[in-house]
């Protein structure tokens, strides 16, 4: 017992999403759904039509003359820095300057100006009327282009342990290869949107579909030359984020804020889907070159990875993303000697950004490709190769526990999970059955693969690992909760509400959770890196503990148990309501803030040493695929997933994250193909051409389970583990299963590049 009436880490109830009933009835309001006050103005962005070059001349007279147009925003309208870059200030908000010098055009679809008009339609129609003359230059689009032009965001970054080259050289067997990995569009169903409303005294209120309200606040403040205290950013919910709203909402919110400031009226900018897809960043396309030395038993002795990230035109979060790809180049495998070098290519594409996994998925896929290659060379079952290279299990001698970046893996449970899953999914039996089936089937071929994931939890930029919360208890005993995390569908609000309810021993319905606002909790980090419930849950818990301690002291109890609406202590018992009421009359404060900073973190990027992660989350999946060797088409037949979420804060929400993450990962590696033409124009800028999975793409049979034994060895909130990102990488098993089936068709190992579209599958066959 920890004093709350709950065992530490007991799984909480599988309640539906906090807005589940409002979602289905259509009552849940997203930013675009708020009633529009009279006089609201609307914006549309004018985007560049070349990928690289200079603006020679710009004629916006037709735009200004179009019906309904009130104003055109260009660089000169921005009183401050005219920049929306989150880390480095290299992203002009409006590239076009009519009186001064326009910024260089860096990608096709870059924002040049914004039209402010009386209606969305008027703004959008007018934005098309600009006449811009460019001096176009040859764009740098691919990793090869960037290498040829020497175009990089920074120097390469290197992590190494031991002498990898020597280890490879000395190994009995060697493999060397390359995998090209495509990017991924977030395709959050709700596009980017912001509504800015001028308030008294020059203050601004901004509703934004952002995962990072504090940053939107800062960006607006810097650009409008306002103190942050004058800008309030609010987010009740987003229609999906997936990382695509971590920084990419900055420009949208800034444009709306600027229009509100200039016109004195509420202003809204909602991007059209095609513009959203063209303008905003995506998952980084990667190329990974690898080289490994191993023995005939498939034991890896040394590896070298060279990772090439296509970062697009600006820095955005690319440094941290490319770092995370490096941190995950080992996935769940111990490399006795390793060297990982990362190159960050700057190209004339949209600025690649955060996307669920944040570089991790690309790193993990590189590791899994390597394993598949080792299996092909040694003739072993790939699962056997995986087993032989896992990090040492938790509690074992830590001789095989050191990562290439110098952190010890102390909590490794991958072996247990994989064994349990291989057993329940009958991996071995099915693999034999499939081999026999393939023998008798000349056209259709099946393949099966198991892939594990180990994912590091924490922002690797250490200072971001902090969170705040505000808990208010009213005289009637009802509780209002606020924290810095944003709700984008992941169920954070519900989980945190359940944490607070458990702390106070109340029914969750007694705890109301309200919109995230920068005027309630300041200086928050983005809801990202899967950290939302870990950090905000802890911050809320601390605030609750503070209030409980005050109530207990007021009751004269040294130690009190809050459970089922009652408070019990040595020598007394009362109800929550009565205690709250009497505490109020005794002038005891019933409001508290909570603050949490993740412990144990000490990562030093400069010396490439320390501990970037608080802990690791683990999981594994087995997928079976069926491939048509005449067309390259395929279908997923079955998937079995076992994932570790520690002690679940809400098993229903966690299962949803695991299943949804898996399918999103499958989409990334199968049908979701981004295609930029030779002029740098995105050709797949709408759901008609960019294909995320539909219900029919889901494996015909699917079993998703949370690992019953899961319990975080670290003191996280109720011993849970973060769940947002790790399951995405389970989708890699589907890619590998398709590869296995293609290999069966080819009669030899047939590595694929990603995404494995039907075309890539067929063209890989002899």
């Amino acid at each position: 017992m920890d004093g709350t009436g709950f065992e530490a880490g007991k799984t909480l109830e599988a309640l539906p999403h906090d807005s589940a009933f409002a979602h289905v009835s259509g009552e849940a309001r997203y930013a675009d759904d708020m009633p529009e006050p009279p006089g609201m103005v609307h914006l549309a962005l004018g985007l560049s039509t070349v990928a690289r070059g200079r603006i020679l001349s710009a004629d916006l007279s037709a735009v200004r003359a179009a019906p309904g147009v009130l104003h055109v925003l260009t660089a000169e309208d921005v009183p401050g820095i005219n920049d929306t870059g989150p880390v480095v200030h290299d992203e002009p908000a409006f590239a076009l300057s009519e009186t001064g010098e326009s910024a260089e055009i860096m990608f096709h679809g870059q924002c040049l100006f914004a039209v402010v008009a009386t209606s969305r339609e008027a703004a959008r129609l007018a934005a098309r009327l600009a006449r811009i003359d460019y001096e176009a230059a040859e764009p740098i689009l691919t990793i090869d282009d960037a290498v040829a032009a020497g175009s990089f965001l920074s120097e390469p970054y290197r992590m190494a342990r031991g002498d990898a080259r020597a280890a490879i050289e000395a190994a009995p067997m060697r493999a060397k290869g390359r995998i090209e990995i495509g990017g991924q569009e977030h395709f959050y169903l709700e596009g980017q949107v912001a509504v800015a409303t001028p308030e008294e005294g020059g203050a601004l209120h901004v509703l934004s579909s952002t995962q990072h309200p504090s940053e939107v606040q800062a960006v607006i403040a810097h650009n409008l030359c306002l103190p942050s205290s004058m800008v309030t950013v609010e987010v009740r919910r987003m229609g999906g984020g997936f990382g695509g709203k971590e920084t990419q909402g900055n420009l949208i919110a800034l444009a709306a804020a600027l229009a509100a400031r200039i016109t004195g009226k509420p202003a809204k900018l909602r991007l059209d889907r095609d513009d959203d897809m063209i303008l905003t960043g995506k998952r980084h396309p990667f190329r990974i070159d690898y080289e490994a030395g191993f023995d005939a038993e498939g034991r890896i002795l040394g590896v070298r990875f060279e990772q090439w990230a296509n970062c697009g035109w600006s820095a955005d979060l690319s440094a941290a993303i490319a770092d995370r790809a490096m941190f995950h180049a080992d996935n769940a495998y111990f490399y006795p000697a390793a060297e990982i070098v990362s190159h960050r290519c700057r190209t004339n594409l949209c600025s690649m950004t955060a996307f669920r996994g944040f570089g991790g998925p690309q790193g993990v896929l590189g590791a899994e490709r390597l394993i598949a290659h080792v299996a092909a060379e040694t003739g072993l079952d790939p699962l056997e190769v995986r087993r032989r290279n896992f990090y040492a299990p938790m509690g074992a001698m830590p001789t095989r526990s050191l990562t290439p970046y110098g952190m010890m893996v102390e909590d490794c449970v991958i072996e247990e999970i994989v064994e349990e899953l291989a057993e329940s999914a009958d991996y071995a039996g099915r693999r034999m059955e499939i081999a026999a089936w393939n023998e008798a089937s000349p056209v259709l071929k099946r393949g099966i693969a198991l892939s594990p994931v180990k994912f590091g939890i924490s922002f690797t930029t250490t200072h971001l690992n902090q969170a705040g919360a505000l808990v208010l208890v009213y005289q009637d005993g009802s509780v209002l909760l606020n924290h810095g995390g944003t709700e984008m569908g992941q169920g954070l609000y519900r989980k945190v509400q359940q944490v607070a309810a458990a702390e106070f021993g109340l029914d969750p319905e007694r705890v109301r959770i309200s919109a995230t606002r920068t005027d309630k909790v300041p200086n928050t980090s983005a809801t990202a890196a899967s950290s939302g419930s870990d950090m905000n849950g802890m911050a809320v818990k601390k605030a609750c503990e503070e209030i409980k301690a005050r109530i207990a002291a007021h009751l004269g109890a040294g130690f009190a148990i809050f459970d089922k609406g009652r408070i019990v202590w040595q020598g007394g018992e009362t109800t929550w309501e009565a205690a709250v009421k009497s505490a109020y009359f005794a002038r005891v404060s019933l409001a508290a803030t909570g603050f949490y900073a993740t412990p144990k973190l000490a990562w030093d990027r400069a010396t490439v040493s320390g501990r970037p992660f608080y802990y690791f989350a683990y999981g594994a999946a087995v997928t079976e695929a069926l491939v048509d060797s005449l067309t390259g088409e395929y279908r997923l037949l079955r998937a079995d997933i076992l994932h570790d979420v520690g002690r679940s804060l809400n098993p229903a929400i966690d299962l949803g994250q695991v299943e949804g993450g898996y399918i999103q990962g499958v989409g990334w590696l199968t049908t979701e193909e981004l295609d930029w033409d030779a002029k740098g124009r995105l050709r797949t800028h709408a759901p008609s051409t960019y294909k995320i999975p539909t219900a029919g793409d889901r494996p015909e049979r699917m079993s998703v389970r949370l690992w019953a034994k899961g319990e975080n060895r670290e003191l996280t909130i109720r011993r849970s583990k973060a769940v947002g990102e790790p399951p995405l990488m389970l989708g890699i098993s589907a890619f590998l299963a398709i590869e296995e089936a293609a290999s069966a068709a080819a009669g030899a190992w047939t590595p694929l590049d990603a995404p494995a579209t039907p075309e890539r599958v067929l063209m890989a066959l002899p």
Partner: protein
Amino acid sequence: MSEGLRFILNGERVAAPGAAPTTTLLDWLREARGLTGTKEGCAEGDCGACTVIVRELAPDGALRQRTANACIQLLPMLHGREVVTVEALGGAHPVQRAMAEGHGGQCGFCTPGFVMSLAHAWETGASAEPEAVVDQIAGNLCRCTGYGPILAAASAARAAPAAAPDHEAALSRLRALRRDLTLTLDHRAEGARFLAPRSAEEFAAARLAHPEATILAGATDIGLWVTKRGFRPAMFLWVGDVAEFGEIGEDEAGLRFGPAVSHERAMAALAPLAPDLGEVWRRFASPQVRGAGTLLGNIANGSPIGDAAPALIALGARLTLRRGAARREIPLETFFIEYGRQDLRPGEFVEFVDVPRPADPMDLRCYKISKRFDQDISSLLAAIHVREEAGMTTLARIAFGGMAGVPKRARAAERALLGRPLDEAAIAAAAAALDEDFTPLSDHRASAAYRMRAARNLLTKFYLERRFGDIRVAGRGRAKPLEDAGERHV
């Protein structure tokens, strides 16, 4: 004299006299009516977030109900019909309860659209088996859930006891409205016009008088021009209120479809002709788009990647073109002259397509290849119609989509097959002849090399299937190795 634009919204009559003809139903619902439960995810008919139910009176007086993408339905197309939005379901509909309790939504943005698709299936008594539900929601994208809980909610909703939908009441509302709307809709607002003739004669005359007008059918294509390209024509001429245009004729020789027959209705009529026709239409877009879009619209706008044309060309379909009172009939394949150009004269329109019945349903096999299996535009579509009699190939009509700027017959390949036994050598010759027939292009859907290789392989596949039965990974006739394994490992 003409009627004002009127329809029924969630049970109540509404009028929209001042709405521009290009106003979409979605914008009108959200902006004019404040009904924000219907969401915009793409404004092009591909995500389903804007799904609503549309009810109308069929010519026989029955209730016809479908789902539609409000984002690409132009408001005047609703004239005389009934629109049901998520708000009307009240929150306690069995589908809503099952979705909420069964974790069918995460971010919730797609949820109202799924609710409407599932409510439509529920109301019309469609199957709640996962395989059927997958089709029912093929036009709804969800980025969060992975769909499992939604499929489960569909069947949970079916299990729940529930009151019958108010179809009788809807019928009487629609009948009453129809009685009041006796005249042609000639809606004029914001400098544009939307004319909805009520008879074929009236339509032909209007077409002749307004050759510049944009003929509108389901707006599944033109709706996108409006939302994405700023298309604002001076006049629409709509086929949807012409009663005869919605008819499907059937006799011994085959089927006849008018310009207002939706894909969904065409699919039901075509499927018995050949199983693969049903499959082509099932994979054609989504239920929302199939319910609105028309077979003739798909042909008339000359899309190079439309799936309807190659399949119908392989069957030997013929078009009837009408200009005023004059009609001419042409083989479907000659209608497509080149990319973006059809054999259509000023003042003329496509009045019918006649689709002959194949001698044997299995004489026709169609293969659609796309990046994503459902609701995707073909990279390649092959329709292979081959008849063997007394050991010889006596008929070969092979048409491809995606291999040229227009849907096109593979005449050289046909010649390679005709008049000889259908064997491996004949197939190899036909495959080689495809080089003569086509020089495909590379685009974001597929490369030229892939298109050609897959096209050749599809001839092989056709041959193997003819000899050994279906060999498919998905869709109709797909292999079921898990079931064949006797559930041994599950």
